[in-house]
């Protein structure tokens, strides 16, 4: 379970996250939706123990992020939007490095790497330098590295965006399987159809605050809209802005 309570994050004079609270239960997929610069990535990085919160409480599987970020890193898998990789290592060297730091037993690591590499279809790239791989393949390497230690909680920051349809499907299957195993999953995405199809609950974050939360159906009902995309645009007050931009574009061409 992931519990976030009155979370604040301040960078210099800018408050990126303004007192947000939400809970992700065991076996639940929670989607964090919001426009660029709304505080999604900052929130997820705090949840993964990468940056400390300025104020508030974050518990991941009962471990306080502010007090024990190392333990939080041990039990979570964090997959960022831009793959965090050493470009001059090969994928296999990178998996060896991550597995060594995470102290994953050899047999488990070999079994997991072999399974995930096969699932994402990157066997032929294992001996090539990561820097020479396409963005999509790098994203797959990043996803596999985030899952090597069988994390108890999964944090994905726009991680599905760069994947091809086949890999996106595999990723969705994996998330559903993790959910069945009782893991807590938080992810942010711009692809609202993915959020609608996968998430048990959704939180819409805007200017560092959660302005709405519920199941996709509840949110659609709440604002009387047909799709999650319309819900998102209406709640983030972007609908009128987007409409006028579309009009301007039509006039321009």
């Amino acid at each position, binding site marked *: 379970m992931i519990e976030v309570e009155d979370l604040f994050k301040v960078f210099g004079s800018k408050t990126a996250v303004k007192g947000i609270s939400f809970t992700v239960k065991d076996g639940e997929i929670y989607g964090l939706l919001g426009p660029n610069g709304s505080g999604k990535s900052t929130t997820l990085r705090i949840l993964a123990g990468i940056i400390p919160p300025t104020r508030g409480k974050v518990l991941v599987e009962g471990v306080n992020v502010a007090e024990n970020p190392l333990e939080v*890193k041990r039990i979570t898998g964090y997959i960022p939007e831009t793959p965090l990789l*050493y470009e001059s290592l*090969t994928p296999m060297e990178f998996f060896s490095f991550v597995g060594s730091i995470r102290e994953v037993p050899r047999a488990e690591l070999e079994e997991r790497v072999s399974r995930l590499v096969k699932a994402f279809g990157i066997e032929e790239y294992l001996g090539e*330098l990561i820097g020479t791989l396409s963005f999509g393949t790098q994203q797959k390497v990043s996803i596999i590295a985030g899952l090597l230690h069988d994390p108890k909680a999964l944090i994905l920051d726009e991680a599905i965006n760069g994947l091809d349809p086949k890999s996106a499907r595999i990723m969705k299957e994996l998330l559903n399987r993790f959910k069945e195993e009782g893991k807590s999953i938080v992810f942010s995405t711009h692809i609202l159809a993915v959020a609608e199809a996968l998430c048990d609950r959704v939180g819409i974050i805007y200017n560092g605050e959660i302005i709405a939360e519920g199941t996709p159906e509840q949110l659609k009902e709440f604002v009387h809209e047909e799709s999650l995309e319309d819900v998102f645009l209406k709640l983030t007050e972007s609908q009128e802005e987007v409409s006028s931009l579309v009009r301007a574009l039509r006039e321009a061409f």
Partner: protein
Amino acid sequence: MEWEIVNVLYREITYKRLKANPQLSMDWNKFMKAFKRSGSLKRTLLSQSALFFFLSLTLVPGVYYVKNPSGSAVIYASYCMLPLIMALYGTAVTAQYAVSLGLFEPLLSLPVRVGGKYLSVMLLITQLPSVLFLLAPAVALSLKLGPAAGVLGFAWALMGTMLGHTLGLLIYDRFGKASGGKFSGLKTAFKAFGILLVMSLFYGLNYLQRYVASHYETLKGVFERYSVVYPFSVSTVEKPLLSLGLLAVYGLVIGVVYVSTVRRLWRRISEGTATERRGGKARLSLHSPALALALKDFKIATRNTALLTGLLMPVVVIIPSLAGALKSGSRDSALGFVLAVGWTSTIAIDAVLKIDGRAFEVLHSLPLNLRAFLRGKLITMTAVPVTAGLLAVLGLSLRNPSSLKVLPLALLLPVATAGTTLTIFYWGIGEVALPQTTWKKMLLALFANGLIIGATAGLWYVEWSLSLPFMLLVDALLLWHLNR
């Protein structure tokens, strides 16, 4: 327009090079300051030209004060190795770096007549200042052998740069694959050798100057026999017509090879690089976190020339003391060498902290504690000096077996100095992070290590066996501190 494109490419490669330095990229003001300083091609060319011209003055006595006039031409010819090696190495390495950064991709979609010439001109223009290294000696040559010899001598230096540049492009075109490939170990060894060669060029020139002066009679015959081959051909400046003819032939051959190589290279850049596949050979290997970190550092460093240069720097710095130890063969000179190795471990901190580059964030996302991180960095920092020290002492012991008494110090001293440096740089830091490498900290580390080295040397001269327990004590204290 063409100058504009070269200027933009140079700014872009500088930007990316600085961005890869985490100590700069994490501090925007510091980064912008560094970028303003080195991002201007004109400014860089001016400052490098001034530097090389200043250095060229040191070569004048070698050419001017030779008794026999022909000796001046032979000595000048030996200096002409420098522009060749610098252009060859600079081209081969920077071409690979520039292409791997995707520097030319924005140009591919633009309606400009793009060619490999932009890559070539950008590399060549940044290497031209090194030719000025031969300017003052060429003036000295003209004073000694007449103006024609001076002008031809400088023309040969330019030809040396062009030859090195063309060979560099050829080497990159033939061997510059992005991935390791079948002979990656061999390539790394060549790269390391090339780095050591370029970095020790100034020692080499110094030695060469003295060697040519004292063995002039023998060398003159060699230079005459092989006068068609560069740099022996430079000594033909005494016979202007022959020299001019040779220059024309060289210009023609290099011109043809250059044009065909640039064309082929551009095809490769625009069509994309086919990388070698190593497929099934990739295997998982697990280690302790500290060792895994160090092994990762070495893998990255051996694939990045700038980082490898930083790691090998201690070896280059100690070349003169190694030469001294080899010459005298005494046990004390072996100690002097080991003390020098210990001292140079301090400067490796800069290279070691740059290895992770922009990917330092990877470490933040992993459950890596500061102790394991520092242990890993200690291994990375000490590996080169310890290996160099042990090999040199073992080598020296073949001449003088009593040198073996220095062997434990070759292992323990770099650990002490590197450990002290890490302790100073990470003082007050409680988590995996990059410390600021300020001059204040560097001076403090050099001072502290100076005390350790001084105490070790003092104890050695009182009673050699006393230095060993002292070193063990220092290492134990530092390891205890880094493990706390």
